[in-house]
């Protein structure tokens, strides 16, 4: 995949809902891939907790594994609008598969937000060189610390290296990742502001991975990461960027906006298969879709889809506009928070109604809808929860300080999968 010349540049001349020609071409290519490679294998992917080798190879061949890497680090440098367009297409094939694609994924997004350009390039270079590699972000912890704010996992400066100790939970793709971004408490006294991040190669001594079974999104292959006396050099420590906490918030919001794009794709998949079903299934002498209660239900879900998509695209556009100096960051945060909450809830409605309108058949694994419903619930606890997004939106609207520790997912608020 190549970067087009004017991929989603902010303009401000006229409201325009149409993707550029380059974006349309990318969309079309990914739509075909999702339709032919992802959708038919939805159960296989579920069983494997990841993509089959030939599917992965095709995705890598298309350049999908580099999608999250900035241009300055050797990636395609997609605009955020392009990214949400692609995520929707992928998720419309299989929402879970979006979590199984090779590449640094959320790791790259975090690195791009938290590091300067030089370090970003350094940390992402291995992924550009080996596009079949995975990255992971080890953020969450199962239990809050009673005595102070921050994480229980600690990073102590001993001798001339940091020693990491503790267990991180809810880590997407931990078992296949080559490199982890581990968040740990560097300064106990500083509560949440004492948290730092470390780039940790997974094969260093002292790391063990324990996979867990989840409700949905099996391809995310979620695991806990146990760190026992893990020693890493100073160069892997990241809390030196200016505006650290602000950058962290931005990472979570952007990451959750990609989740919202997946929620949009999930809605599309669930509604379309259900629309087809109600046109063929008959009861009382006609297709069930010709009963008003059924048809209105389908109509409402199409309205949701229309709204989710436009909200996600607008929020993504605003991030591009912020980067181009054409919009305020708070505008992008607010639009994102609203898009995230809306798309997550809409996906849940779509999954739930899809099963409902299939009746008993919907409960059977012969149909994909029960999977969409489980995936929808799982997506609601990925990136950010709806509650967190709503808190963010209202704090912006009420002019309250954006204390990141209140807004990002933690064991004290609500944990999510990152």
């Amino acid at each position, binding site marked *: 995949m190549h970067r087009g010349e004017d991929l*989603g540049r*902010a*303009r*401000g*001349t*006229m*409201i*325009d*809902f*149409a*993707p*550029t020609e380059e*974006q349309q071409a990318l969309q079309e290519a990914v739509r075909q891939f999702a339709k032919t490679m992802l959708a038919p294998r939805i159960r296989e992917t579920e069983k494997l907790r990841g993509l089959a080798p030939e599917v992965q190879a095709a995705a890598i061949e298309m350049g999908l594994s580099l999608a999250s890497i900035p241009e300055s680090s050797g990636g395609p440098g997609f605009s955020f*609008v392009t990214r949400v367009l692609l995520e929707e297409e992928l998720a419309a094939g299989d929402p879970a598969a979006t979590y199984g694609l090779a590449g640094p994924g959320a790791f790259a997004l975090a690195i791009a937000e938290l590091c300067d350009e030089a370090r970003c390039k350094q940390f992402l270079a291995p992924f550009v060189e080996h596009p079949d590699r995975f990255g992971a972000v080890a953020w969450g912890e199962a239990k809050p610390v009673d005595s102070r704010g921050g994480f229980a996992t600690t990073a102590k400066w001993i001798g001339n290296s940091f020693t990491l100790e503790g267990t991180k939970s809810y880590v997407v793709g931990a078992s296949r990742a080559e490199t982890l971004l581990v968040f740990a408490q560097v300064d106990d006294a500083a509560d949440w502001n004492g948290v730092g991040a470390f780039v940790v190669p997974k094969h260093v001594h002292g790391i063990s991975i324990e996979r867990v079974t989840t409700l949905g999104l099996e391809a995310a292959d979620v695991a806990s990461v146990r760190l026992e006396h893990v020693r890493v050099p100073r160069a892997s420590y990241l809390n030196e960027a200016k505006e650290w906490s602000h950058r962290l918030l931005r990472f979570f919001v952007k990451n959750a906006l990609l989740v919202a794009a997946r929620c949009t794709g999930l809605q599309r998949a669930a509604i379309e298969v259900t*629309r087809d079903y*109600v*046109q063929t299934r008959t009861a009382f002498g006609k*297709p069930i*879709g*010709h009963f*008003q209660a059924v*048809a*209105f239900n*389908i*109509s*409402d879900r*199409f*309205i949701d889809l*229309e*709204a*989710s998509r*436009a*909200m996600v*695209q*607008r929020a993504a*556009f*605003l991030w591009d*506009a912020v980067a181009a100096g*054409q*919009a305020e960051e708070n505008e992008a945060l607010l*639009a994102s*928070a*609203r*898009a995230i*909450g*809306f798309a997550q809830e809409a996906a849940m409605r779509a999954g739930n109604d899809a099963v409902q309108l299939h009746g008993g058949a919907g409960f059977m694994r012969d149909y994909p809808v029960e999977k969409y419903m489980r995936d929808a619930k799982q997506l609601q606890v990925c990136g950010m929860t709806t*509650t967190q*997004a*709503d*808190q963010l*939106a*209202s*704090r912006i*609207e*009420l*002019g*309250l*300080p954006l204390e990141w520790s*209140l807004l990002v997912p933690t064991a004290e608020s609500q944990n999510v999968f990152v």
Partner: protein
Amino acid sequence: MDFLLSDRQKTLREGIRGFAANVIRPQALSWDRNAGVPEPFLKQMVQMAAQMGGQLGVSLEPAVARAPDESGESGEKKKSSANLTALIGAEEMAWGDAGLLLCLPGPGLGGPPVRASGTPEQKERFFGIFKDMSETLAWGAYGLTEPGAGSDVAGIRASCRKEGGEWVINGRKCYITNGARAAWTVVFATIDPALGRAGHRAFVVEKGTPGFGVGRIEEKMGLRASETAELVFEECRVPEANLLGGEESYQSKEGFMTAMKTFDNTRPLVAAMAIGIGRAAYEYARDFVKERYLLSRSIPRYGAIAERLAKVGRQLEAARMVTWRAGWMADQGIPNAKEASMSKAIAGQAAIGACIEAIDICGAEGTIAHDHQLLEKWFRDIKVYDIFEGTGNIQRIVISKRVIEGLKGF
């Protein structure tokens, strides 16, 4: 893709917002109580619209949303943003006062069918009266609804028959906005109820036509500044030249359908107005919370209120995006019947939800009527936005027919 307003749109929005806050809102409650906006103020509005070179007019007049295929305007070739701009203006005006918006002189809801289906001579004649309103204000109206037929448009019973060079209309129309004051009203009647839509004819009935009278003026829950009238037709004789579009246009079913197509343009406008009212209520509650609650304290109750506010905010944003997209499609010349209905369906509900929640959040204070405290009024005004221009269910019928194969209706 581009989601930034143009400079022109920003100027328009800021201009209306300032005027709405300083001039419109302080008077809104008295208009509501006195069931109308005084003519001098309406004249002032007309002047302002003229001064702004029609730019303000675009947003003031619900009728100005143009069909892209309108004669003399190559909507397809030249990408315009007229519809979108009108939506932005309509939201802002309704944020000021929706009642005023419906009172504004101009062809009103009668405009779109005349624009879409009128002959050149008819357009000239009926729109001519709005060109210079410095002396006399003029209104147009749209008369479709009857006591026995609202949603079920095909079920209208007002009859028409041709006698010599005239048409004779008998029947009643109800809930007609600006119906009593209108210089002319587009009236739908049938040559034979058994023919369904194929039997429908649309006439432009002028004030003073023999046999045409005004019945009761309704007392309403909200939008009380706007006039809603019953129209009575008793052997009302309308010249042949006032049959909208001329005789030929009724040879096929198309004639009637063309008139209905205008909903594709007016529905997003009505949706935008609903969003304007909803946003007013939302902002009122938001500012109330800002002043009276200390949300920075993590007392659970306050957290719950913050969340309710956020939910209202995102529903309105969702509605606005669907509405803008429907307007954008109209500007691009892309058929948008489904999206126009979507916008009306989501906006009506989002805005009603906003008003209900806002009062909940503010408590007793939210129900008290003061000049600068209009929340109870918005609550009364908003409900009809899920009723007129097609109820929520009717929008869902339109959408259903376009997403479910072989579905003809219910």
